[in-house]
């Protein structure tokens, strides 16, 4: 499981936790998030900005 950070706004996506409130189950890998997903904090599309990996577990 990895932790990713949006390079525009700093939003952190933790694969282990997922985003249950946005319908993304805990344990969902970044690669498996749909291409039309947008950063919940800044609206940047997944396709526009790869999230930068910040911690490798």
């Amino acid at each position: 499981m990895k932790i990713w950070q949006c390079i525009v706004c700093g939003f952190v996506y933790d694969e282990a936790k997922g985003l249950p409130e946005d319908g993304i189950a805990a344990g969902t890998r970044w690669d498996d998030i749909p291409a039309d997903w947008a950063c919940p904090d800044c609206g940047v599309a997944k396709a526009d900005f790869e999230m930068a990996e910040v911690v490798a577990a």
Partner: protein
Amino acid sequence: MHPIVILGSGLAGYTLARELRKLDTAVPLVMVSRDDASFYSKPMLSNALAAGRSAAQLAGSSAAQMSAQLSTRILAHTEVREIDIAARTVQAGNESITYAKLVLALGADPISLPLEGDAAGEVIRVNDLADYARFRTAIEGRKRIALLGAGLIGCEFANDLAAAGYAVEVIDPAPRPLGRLLPEAAGNRLRAALEDLGIGFHLGRTARALTRAGAGLRLELSDGSVIETDAVLSAIGLKPRTGLAVHAGIRVNRGIVTDRRLATSAADVYALGDCAEVDGQLLPFVMPIMHAARALAQTLAGTPTQVSYPAMPVVVKTPALPAVVCPPPAVAGGWRVESDDAGIDARYEDDRGRLRGFALLGAATARKNALAQRLPPVLQ
């Protein structure tokens, strides 16, 4: 063919360039930047310290990389001296560039509080990546920081500095942190969470004078009290950069005035981001920039498009007690506040019982998207 010229390489300028390139890969594009034009995340500047991130680590792509990625000519370290809306030129450094369309993405300057004293010039402001680098150098090996401003950026810096081991004292004329964004109970809770990190609050007061005291500094407040400190950081708000527009005869109010197509009063001149007052609103946050950039890209690519803003929650990155705010418009109504050990859920309802804004703290922040979807759009 004359280029589309974008003045500014911040989030607004780069997002517009990226959105435009999705629609039109051929139109010539020129960007002019006062700094080195590297792409970075401005929202991270106020929460990068505790994570141990240097300015170099925050810089994402260099100007050369962005130039290649966006097929754009980028003039870095170049000051724009003048815009001539009749001749349709900008004077950038020593070069005069004729534009087909011009976009002002100039950003905003930090507001400075007038201070007395021989060290008034020592106040640090962090408004861009170069500022952040200077800030890191200035506080290296220091212990005590006085922070002017308990608004959104002030609270983020306070939390970040405290988490990095600094002794932080926060000064603000408001009675509570995030005074304009949070109802009283939520402001008090945030204050308590930040105080638990050791942060001291000096509220209902302003800074009056900053003088040298040995190796340190002495900050005197409006009530005569004194804070001994090593550095002073100011985060009391932003003022749109309007000077170039004023000088060019472009209409300016609080920001550069635009309609919903982001068009200014001058033909083929547009504005977006922190410098722009779009349909009467100044919204210096990331989400409105994204929406405005997408609409303007459409317009510049030949499809005139008005910007629409949904309700846009603003995240306050205070790990001690995370917050999300969606401030209500100026309508009659009141806050309905629910509080438990895990956080606060405050909802602003108008006189007809409709949800118009909210403030969420702690665990309640998970509800931000569900609540935002129930709010009317800011600009439909």
